[in-house]
């Protein structure tokens, strides 16, 4: 069996990339995110409602902070993408998403200014009869606010086809 994981690629395990948002979120993005999900839950938009709950003020939808494009402040690439990606040394850069594991440590607030640290946790391969040798890249994003409080961790797997 030939491996697709070169020494160059393996060297990426453990690498990190850090981005800090240029500003705090504000409240409007929470409402926008909920609206895109056809969700009018007032906990994301109505401070009077939120005051009567344990949250005391509006909170972000739970996975909101794990969509980290907004934090990065990068230019568009040729396909319109502005988010984080690893420039991995592979001949094929086509991938599909394998799944996500989110852990939310505390609600995200409008006043939070977030830093995200992306890290490659693992790179491994599996050979399938149908698709050939697939490379699995497991990344972790840890989001903290301006006080260093850990808000959320997102672990995701991207699967690169030959």
């Amino acid at each position, binding site marked *: 069996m030939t491996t697709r994981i070169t020494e160059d690629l393996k060297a990426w395990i453990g690498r990190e990339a850090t981005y800090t948002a240029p500003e705090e979120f504000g409240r409007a993005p929470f409402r926008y995110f909920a609206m895109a999900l056809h969700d009018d839950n007032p906990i994301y938009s109505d401070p009077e409602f939120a005051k009567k709950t344990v949250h005391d003020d509006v909170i972000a939808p739970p996975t909101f902070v794990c969509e980290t494009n907004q934090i990065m402040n990068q230019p568009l690439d040729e396909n319109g993408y*502005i988010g984080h990606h690893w420039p991995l040394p592979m001949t094929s850069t086509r991938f599909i998403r394998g799944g996500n594991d989110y852990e939310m440590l505390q609600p995200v607030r409008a006043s939070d200014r977030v830093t995200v640290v992306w890290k490659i946790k693992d790179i491994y391969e599996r050979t399938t009869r149908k698709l050939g040798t697939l490379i699995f890249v497991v990344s972790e994003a840890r989001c903290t606010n301006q006080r260093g409080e850990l808000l959320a961790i997102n672990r995701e797997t991207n699967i690169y086809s030959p």
Partner: protein
Amino acid sequence: MNIAQPKASGAVPNGDTLPSETFRCDLTSLVMYAGATWDFHRYHYDAAFVKTLDMPAPFVDGQMIGALLSSRLMRWGGPNAFVRKLGYRQRTTVYVDDSIVIAGKVTSRATENGRQIATLNLTVTKPDGTAVVRDGTATIDLGPA
């Protein structure tokens, strides 16, 4: 225009079933989610572009599925709810104009540090029965016990 209707308002709060809901991933929804997450990649709206990649149509961002599951869990859990954990493997791609059916069942309840905690199993299925998520799990804090 009011596009956001509370769909589970008649449901028993915190019952043992996450009310099943069909969500149509039309282009408007994909564009709105792309905008809300600053994800302007042509994957999610440019039909001609994705055809050059041998894909049949623009497709849903995998994280949108997690966002939908979280949204419905929060609605189910009530005003003091907060989703602590959510995990899922995505088994197939969801394309523009596909409908997906979100469903879930409570698997355990406990009180931890004075808070009510529930865990659920979650599924996301296309109307023809194709599993998008078969084995999702969530842990949700429902507030003070």
